[in-house]
């Protein structure tokens, strides 16, 4: 990323200038990172592939004449779960590239000499990565509309998907940036992030008919992704109220708070040049 910062205004007191830069630095970084992500076409290509996936699922669902009323609710649940899964995946990948990628491309040095604090750099990068989730969700809206309008859960499904997905995306985006900051290479960072995501998604693929004891329940609740998806299912498929299974959201919330707090505390140490790592 090549950061362009507006020239300093002549006549402004140095202290207020520094404060203004600290306050708006994250916004400048976020704007620049977001522009890079979307104008380069990287984000749009991922969205294009995701829209094809959703089109296939939606079309197959709509051609199924044997689908009953409740199974249609399950298909809304499936599409929302796909949106959260893919949205979180792309957010994690983009954030995992955030710091280690800058190091390898040799652009971190120029970023560090700009008058923007390191915490602002991290905040800007997190916001840019989160735009991937918001775009993924935006793409999901018409598909959810097609599937959910007939069963009267459109508003509920969209509000639920947005809130729960944003919570998970923030948590995993923060984890992605932490991994990126600590990784010695970009490959390591992305591989570690993808492996983490695989571990988190594995329990969601277990057959629901398997006997599930207390250990499974503990694993489910300790996993921010699986517990968030379980909360979505409990509301959309089982028709529970939003307060009934709220405890499922404890882990995603704690993940976001702990990982976000770690980023704030460790931010200045994470955004740094590493000896031996240079643009290849």
């Amino acid at each position: 990323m090549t950061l362009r910062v507006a020239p300093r205004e002549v006549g402004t007191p140095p202290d207020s200038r520094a404060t203004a830069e600290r306050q708006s630095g994250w916004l400048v970084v976020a704007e620049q990172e977001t522009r890079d992500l979307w104008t380069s076409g990287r984000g749009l290509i991922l969205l294009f592939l995701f829209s094809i996936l959703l089109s296939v699922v939606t079309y197959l669902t709509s051609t199924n004449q044997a689908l009953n009323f409740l199974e249609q609710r399950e298909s809304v649940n499936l599409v929302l779960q796909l949106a959260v899964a893919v949205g979180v995946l792309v957010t994690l990948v983009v954030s995992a590239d955030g710091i280690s990628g800058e190091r390898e491309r040799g652009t971190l040095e120029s970023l560090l000499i700009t008058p923007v604090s390191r915490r602002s750099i991290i905040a800007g990068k997190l916001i840019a990565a989160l735009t991937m989730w918001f775009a993924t969700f935006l793409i999901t809206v018409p598909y959810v509309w097609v599937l959910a309008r007939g069963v009267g859960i459109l508003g509920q499904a969209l509000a639920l998907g947005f809130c729960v997905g944003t919570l998970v995306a923030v948590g995993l985006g923060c984890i992605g940036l932490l991994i990126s900051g600590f990784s010695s290479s970009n490959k390591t960072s992305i591989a570690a992030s993808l492996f983490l995501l695989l571990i988190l998604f594995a329990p969601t693929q277990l057959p629901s008919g398997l006997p599930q004891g207390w250990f499974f329940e503990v694993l489910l609740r300790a996993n921010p992704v699986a517990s968030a998806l379980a909360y979505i299912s409990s509301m959309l498929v089982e028709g529970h109220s939003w307060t009934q299974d709220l405890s499922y959201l404890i882990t995603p919330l704690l993940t976001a708070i702990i990982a976000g707090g770690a980023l704030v505390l460790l931010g200045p140490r994470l955004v740094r040049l590493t000896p031996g790592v240079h643009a290849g």
Partner: protein
Amino acid sequence: MRALILGVLLAGLLSWLPAAAHAEPINVEVVADPPVVSTVLGDHFEITSEVKNTGSAPTGEILAHLNVASIEGSVYVDPEDWSPNRSQQLSLQPGESRELTWEIQAVNSGHFAAYVVVVPFGSSVAGNEDLKVSQLVNVDVAQRTTLTAGGALPVVVAVPLLVGLAAGAAFFRVRRRRATGT
């Protein structure tokens, strides 16, 4: 003589065997209302059933259970989908009656019958008690098309097309910028 001795022995033996438990009949009357429900796929409706103790003794613990069956065609019915709470436990004093409400959602279209059956409840159930069943509630569920391939097609085609065009435009813009070196 030998037959007589055998008969006496057999009678003596049988008298030692425990007599088969004779269950008390459930003296209740079950009336379901309304007799006919016409609704549309996906809609919720309620039926009520009045359970009355017509006997002279308390019923003890009894269980009222709702069931739904298809009475036309070969529609698969999973009663759990129609109503998640299909059992209500109660006990009635002589002459007492209780009105039970059942919330149902029509999840299939077609002709169905809903009925409430009362069974004894608890560890003292012998297994040969009579069941008391309400009359059938005829449930006619009209089809409502909520999802069709034709309805989904515009979204299924248009969204990837628009996103693909945007991605393509961004890709070519980047290539052109690289080629011109700006």
